[in-house]
């Protein structure tokens, strides 16, 4: 590993957005001493490596996604997102800059990246191809190959580049084919894709293109054998270059360039022209080729004999040609797993491939460990790929784009890299791994040495800061998790007695925006020893009775999620939320308010699982989080509270005079109605249907009888000194704000207003039930509910019954014995009720199946039955 320690030189720093550069779009290319660089912004920089200064900065009208150099024509092609491809002549570029140089003397100041005076806006005429859907392109000799995101499918198009001196505009499309797979995402929104597809040209050795394209950045020359195997007889007979497309969905497909040329604009048949070589099942970020076999002595130029493709998560495909036992040519195909996520990669000499992850730059050796092939070892035919790849670290982190420099030192490799922080650097690798003897130290040597050391320190410090950040994040996440664990344990272990963290719900009426609103106030109280920190949220689910009846009640319930931001021990937080009535003026009672604490694992742990800043790689936001459990958090139920009619009743008649005026308004009255009502003056009532009904129909009535003994036991001592009726009323309205007035005036009957504005009358009186008990008349209390609105009467009745049920259950637990009863009478009542219930059931069934006309009558009958059910008023003993 010592031999792999690279010698890193920082060349220049460039502006980068907060959070660093994202991988995928920055590019760096070099031609001689010139380095062309884009960071994914609108700018393209030209940097002179020898002079050590920035020579030009071009501003394009959109984000730059891709750069290609056509060295022979001295042209730079630039893909500008959502615009098209621009072509800059390099000679012209240099000229325009040298003119520029006279004006400003800050050429040394390359650290700034761009001083505004140097930025040359690119002429719109330089656009050689207008196409907003282009995603990537590549150039090959005189051809330009583009990959565009068509409405339904990826589309490969072929254009002829003009010769130098001609009109720089492309001469027109000479071929087109659609790939079989649709691009991911909606076609309607061709916004910046997460991953751009990758194109790569592979030429056979005989191709004229191969000769003229020796130091292309993306083109490779493949050995005939591998070429023929991969792309077929025709491609190798024609000696036609092949375009490889690596798509974000993981597909690796190829198109023989010469078959792509079609007459006119007729697209080629994609089935015949496009061949899918492999599916990597993760976005392909790099395609390249390598020479893995040692070169024979007499061969001058080496052709690659191994095709590689890298997926984003590190899955790597390598293909070589080999012969099977019978002597037939077969492709040898291997998949490896390298550490991901891969930001970028490059193929170097000697079978080495470099790939960068956020934490490291690694090199893998696809040659067979450097041992020459031994013909006496029959087990390994020629072209055997290693069974395992061992990445060796180069200790440079967050490199977002790489390119192998053409100015490689003897026996080594020089990489040009751009780090996420926007630093351009060269990494010189001496692959011979011979440490030079440090004996003769000259002054120049020392200077260079110091410079090397300084750059080394720079690299290490960048790496350290990155690693430190990651560790910090993880520690913080662990602390949070620990606290969450404590809280959960405390809550779950204390089933009995007061809970360390509690939530109580109360309801009040308040006026919001001209409308009276029933609001629930949830009070979260932390009496435990732990604090509720980041990641905790209070979830309040509001479920109305009509929603509860529907099958998918969970989906129709309204859930409020309120983040609990640091609730220390002993502190409390109050949350108020409106319950209704809604826009229709109706409030479906009862309403159930359930509170729960939710702890979001995603929020707390998510950050720590994604290494470094997420902005660097959008896909990281989702991928590592897959390890989290499905529900993504912990849910601890706290309390459940039911809001019924008795809690919602308002008593304007009881109100003290100075409070009376506002509450007289109907809670949901239309302001216009109110206004009109006010104009018409008192006494002239609006003839709405509700008021008509109230005036002319007898109110609905229901009554419940409860034995006085039972009530007394429940009401207990707290209401001593008042009559049982008053005590019962107070007990019923215990959760209502008006209870104090009721208590103060010792009322036994009260007139309230329901949420929808109709009256509800509660009357409580003592009665004697004679025919039930053989021992004589039984003391009982009758609770009578009266309302002009049937719905309100029902809701109030339901609320009272609910309380009674709870009371009976409590009393039964205490073990009080009922008095002696006349059973036959009770049986009679029960039988009656059962028969009525059966009838109700059949009617309700019929209601479901009948059409509108009949159902009205049925509903009418049903209501009658319900009334009958209630009428021999329920008796509780």
């Amino acid at each position, binding site marked *: 590993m010592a031999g792999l320690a690279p010698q890193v030189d920082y060349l220049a720093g460039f502006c980068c957005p907060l959070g660093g550069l994202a991988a995928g779009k920055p590019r760096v290319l070099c031609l001689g001493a010139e380095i062309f660089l884009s960071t994914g912004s609108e700018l393209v920089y030209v940097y002179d490596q020898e002079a050590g200064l920035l020579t030009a900065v071009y501003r394009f009208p959109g984000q730059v996604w891709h750069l290609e150099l056509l060295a022979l024509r001295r042209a730079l092609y630039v893909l500008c997102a959502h615009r098209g491809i621009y072509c800059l002549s390099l000679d012209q570029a240099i000229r325009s800059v040298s003119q520029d140089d006279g004006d400003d003397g800050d050429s040394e100041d390359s650290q700034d990246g761009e001083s505004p005076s140097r930025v040359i806006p690119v002429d719109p005429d330089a656009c050689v191809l207008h196409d907003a859907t282009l995603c990537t392109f590549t150039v090959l000799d005189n051809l330009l190959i583009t990959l565009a995101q068509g409405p339904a499918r990826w589309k490969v198009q072929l254009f002829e580049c003009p010769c130098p001196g001609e009109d720089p505009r492309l001469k027109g499309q000479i071929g087109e084919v659609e790939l079989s797979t649709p691009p991911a995402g909606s076609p309607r929104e061709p916004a910046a894709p997460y991953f751009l597809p990758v194109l790569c040209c592979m030429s056979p050795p005989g191709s004229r293109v191969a000769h003229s394209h020796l130091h292309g950045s993306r083109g490779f020359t493949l050995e005939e054998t591998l070429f023929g195997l991969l792309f077929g*007889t025709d491609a190798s007979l024609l000696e036609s270059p092949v375009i490889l497309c690596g798509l974000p969905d993981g597909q690796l497909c190829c198109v023989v360039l010469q078959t792509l040329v079609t007459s006119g604009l007729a697209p080629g*048949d994609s089935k015949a022209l496009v061949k899918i070589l492999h599916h990597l099942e993760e976005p392909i970020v790099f395609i390249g080729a390598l020479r893995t076999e040692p070169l024979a002595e007499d061969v001058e130029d080496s052709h690659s004999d191994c095709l590689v493709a890298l997926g984003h998560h590190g899955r790597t495909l390598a293909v070589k040609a080999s012969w099977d036992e019978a002597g037939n*040519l077969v492709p040898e195909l291997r998949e490896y797993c390298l550490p991901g996520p891969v930001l970028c990669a490059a193929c170097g000499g000697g079978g080495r491939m470099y790939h960068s992850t956020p934490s490291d730059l690694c090199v893998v050796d696809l040659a067979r460990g450097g041992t020459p092939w031994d013909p006496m070892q029959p087990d390994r035919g020629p072209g055997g790929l290693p069974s395992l790849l061992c990445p060796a670290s180069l200790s440079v982190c967050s490199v977002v784009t790489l390119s192998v420099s053409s100015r490689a030192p003897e026996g080594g490799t020089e990489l040009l890299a751009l780090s996420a922080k926007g630093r351009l650097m060269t990494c010189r690798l001496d692959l011979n791994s011979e440490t030079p003897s440090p004996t003769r130290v000259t002054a120049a040597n020392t200077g260079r040495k110091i410079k090397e050391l300084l750059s080394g320190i720079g690299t290490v410090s960048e790496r350290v800061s990155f690693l430190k950040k990651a560790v910090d994040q993880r520690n913080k996440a662990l602390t949070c998790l620990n606290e969450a664990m404590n809280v959960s344990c405390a809550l779950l272990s204390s089933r009995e007695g007061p809970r360390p963290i509690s939530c109580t719900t109360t309801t009040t009426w308040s006026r919001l925006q001209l409308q009276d609103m029933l609001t629930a106030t949830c009070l979260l109280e932390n009496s435990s020893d732990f604090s509720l920190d980041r990641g905790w949220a209070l979830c309040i689910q509001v479920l109305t009775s009509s929603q509860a009846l529907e099958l998918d009640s969970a989906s129709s319930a309204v859930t409020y999620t309120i983040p609990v931001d640091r609730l220390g021990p002993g502190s409390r937080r109050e949350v108020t939320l409106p319950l209704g009535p809604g826009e229709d003026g109706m409030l479906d009672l009862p309403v159930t308010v359930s509170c729960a604490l939710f702890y979001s694992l995603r929020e707390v742990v998510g950050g720590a699982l994604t290494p470094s800043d997420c902005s660097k790689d959008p896909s990281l936001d989702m991928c590592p989080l897959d390890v989290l459990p499905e529900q993504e958090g912990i849910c601890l139920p706290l309390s459940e509270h039911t809001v019924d009619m008795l809690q919602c009743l308002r008593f304007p008649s009881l109100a003290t005079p100075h409070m009376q005026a506002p509450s007289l308004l109907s809670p949901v009255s239309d302001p216009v109605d109110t206004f009109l009502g006010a104009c018409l003056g008192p006494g002239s009532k609006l003839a709405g249907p509700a008021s008509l009904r109230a005036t002319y129909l007898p109110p609905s009535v229901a009554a419940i009888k409860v034995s006085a003994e039972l009530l007394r036991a429940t009401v207990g001592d707290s209401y001593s000194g008042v009559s049982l009726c008053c005590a019962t009323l107070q007990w019923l309205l215990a959760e209502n704000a008006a209870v104090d007035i009721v208590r103060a005036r010792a009322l036994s009957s009260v007139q309230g207003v329901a949420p929808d504005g109709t009256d509800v009358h509660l009357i409580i009186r003592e009665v004697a039930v004679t025919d039930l008990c053989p021992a004589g008349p039984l003391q009982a209390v009758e609770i009578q509910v009266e309302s002009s609105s049937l719905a309100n009467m029902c809701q109030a009745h339901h609320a009272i019954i609910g309380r009674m049920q709870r009371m009976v259950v409590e009393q039964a637990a205490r073990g009080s014995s009922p008095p002696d009863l006349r059973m036959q009478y009770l049986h009679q009542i029960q039988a009656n009720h059962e028969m009525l219930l059966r009838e109700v059931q059949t009617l309700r069934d019929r209601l479901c199946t009948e059409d509108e006309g009949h159902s009205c009558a049925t509903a009418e009958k049903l209501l009658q039955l319900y009334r009958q059910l209630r009428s021999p008023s329920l008796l509780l003993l």
Partner: protein
Amino acid sequence: RSHETPLGSSTPHASCLDLWRQRNDQLVRQAKVAQGLSLRRQQLAQDALEGFRELLHCLQGLPAAVPVLPLELTVICNFITLRASLAQGFTEDQAQGIQQGLERVLETQEQLEPRLECGLSALWDSVLHSSSLLPELLPALHHLALQALLFSGDDHLDLTFLSGASEDLLLLLKTWNLPAEESDAPLTIQDARGLRDVLLTASAYRQGLQELITGRLSRALSSLHEAASGLCPQPVLVQVYTALGTCLSKMGNPQRALLYLLSALKGGSTWGPALLEASRLYRQLGNTAAELESLELLVEALSITHGSEAPQLLIEVELLLPRPEPASPLYCGTQSQAKYLLASRCLQTGRAEDAAEHYLDLLALLLDGSEPKISPPPCPTGPCMPEVFLEAAAALIRAGRAQDALTVCEELLSRMSSLLPKMPQPWGNARKGTKESPHCPPWVSATHLLRGQAWVQLGAQKEAISEFSRCLELLFRATPTDKEQGPASNCEQGCTSDVALQQLRAAALISRGLGWVTSGQDTKALQDFLLSVQMCPGNQDASFHLLQTLRRLDRRDEAIAFWRRLEAQTKLPQENATWSLPLYLETCLSWIRPHDRETLLEEFQTSLLEPCDL
């Protein structure tokens, strides 16, 4: 200024509407100026498109109002026209733009809610019903409806309610009564009437083409006539005439078909489809000279690349036509495909010299790297590249240019050398000794066969026999069990059809046998002929050669027995016609066929049977 409205409140509204209108009119004028190909003008058109988009945003940012709606709908129409003509196609978002426009109309009628779930047709239905109350909207709405037809193809959108009960799109378009546009209406890039005519022509043509492909010829004819009689730009007219020619020739009216093809050729600059169709027609008529001449012209026509003309910034007929697929009668392929067709027809019709020249041209076209232009191979519709080489070699031999044929074969083998199986296997043989040999593509054997034939022509019997032996050696190797191995191109499967392989073996055996005969080694020849008869009993050539050799060797009894069998066979119906063999193999087989079978048979009868009767 004096007539500025006294109603102060409506002034800003009216002037705003006027401003928007002026903006629309200005953009329309800009787009009309921008017709052309130059980059500046393209930029201008692009800017106009952006302008329309912004204007639309402005208009749709406000609640829909009836006075503004005609302008808004017109802007939508203009935007779609420009967008479609710039992008040369229709996209989903344009259709959505239309839908949004419709919803805005309904918004003013307060009918929006229940319509949302219904399909587009229902939306149109309700819009047009409600707009009958708003006559000022009608022109723009009809324009929009025409544009909606562009997106729907002809199956999604049911606009029959516009014109009564007609189901037929053509009839619908023809009877579509467009409301008259008012003179003061906002400007449009393309007016509704023009768009309707374009749609009418395009759909008539499409329908005709579809019917032509599916074989409903008389209906195709009437649709195509309809298209030709409509408003039809010249290039489209050429296509229509070609399709008419195809249709008529299929209906058995070659003379009328030729007339149409001729007018297609006179009409325009795209001669390809018409020439190809003419060559088919001449072939059908048996006029080989004319057929080959049209093919030659076709090759020439396809070599001319005429630059694409400046597209108009309108929705034109061309935009609505499908791109020709290989199945379409208007698909004429590429230059190399035409060249191949010409070369192979020459070879088939026995014009060997021409064929050889054309094949050499084709190979040069495909392989010569000196030209910057590249040309696609005849694949995938034609044969694969090795077959082109083999046919070229066969044509050269036939034309008496054996040396050239050898060069072509050499070229083929050298280009493929890296893909051939490795014969000596140091690691394989050392371990297992004898084992099955590697599979070799059949066309490699065929190359050796043709090389042998070339040597025969050059009079070098020894070399010829060794080539035939090499061919046989490769052929009799074990056939591969797994055909899936490697990315074999489709032609290799074609060559490996059992019949072709059998015939190839027979051809090689007969050829070698003939070689032995020439060098006087009759017994060896006999062996090969016998083998070939066994190998391929259907091939009568082998039997004839065998018979002749037997007679020469004076093996009378065997000869008689064999002759009787052969005679019985000749009485059976011949099956050879049904085989479809590769052209090079067919050519090769024709060389080794005994010339005059009937006379030979008679000769046998007299020379063999008479002495027997004595």
